[in-house]
């Protein structure tokens, strides 16, 4: 099993809080595929800085409200 990236996120939580926004709708907003949103939510993939900013802007919150650091 691959080592999980040390970046945690609240994407699923924020997405559901935003009127149960679908993964497809979020994917469209940030310009990635639905499978990439799934991978981000599962912690299997850390998005690029640009996509991270786009996600934060969709939820109208700061970057650190979405992403956290869980490493050394």
């Amino acid at each position, binding site marked *: 099993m*691959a080592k*999980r990236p040390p970046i945690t996120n609240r994407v699923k939580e924020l997405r559901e809080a935003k009127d149960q926004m679908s993964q497809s709708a979020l994917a469209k907003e940030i310009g990635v595929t639905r*499978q990439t949103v799934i991978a981000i939510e599962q912690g299997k993939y850390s998005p690029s800085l640009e996509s991270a900013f786009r996600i934060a802007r969709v939820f109208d919150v700061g970057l650190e409200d979405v992403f956290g650091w869980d490493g050394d």
Partner: protein
Amino acid sequence: MFDMSKMFYYMGCTRFLTWGSLMGFQEKMAWAMVVVLIVTGVTYFSTVFQASAALGAVAPPDLPLMFGYAVFLVVLTIVAAVIISVSRPSEAGEGPDERDKLIQYKGEAQSGRLMGALMIGALLGVGMSGDANLLFHFVFANLIIAQIAQFGFQILYYRRGA
């Protein structure tokens, strides 16, 4: 009456459809390319083996056979792409996103290393024998193996995380 076989059949279908929906177009194409490359590669080399057996020596490179291989590969790739596109039209126009591109780069890097190792092995192992025909077939096989590995590594990164 309750039919267990039907239940397992539907469970299998549901599982397959769920699995299919978790994969994007690029990952499905990677799976398809592994199958296509194995099928075309086995077909090509079984013909080379048969020709070699008939000759009693390693068969020389056969350009019409290679051309046929290339056409077979292209046709099967197009067929696979059409089937995948038709199965989920909403994803058909999707180009690779940042994760797909990262996975493609990683797959290419790993297969490049593998191809380098295989080429050195072919040069050392076959080159010393002085049989140019054998060397040609080994190098051609290495190219196909490296391509299969490239898509195999991509699938691994898609499943395990990039």
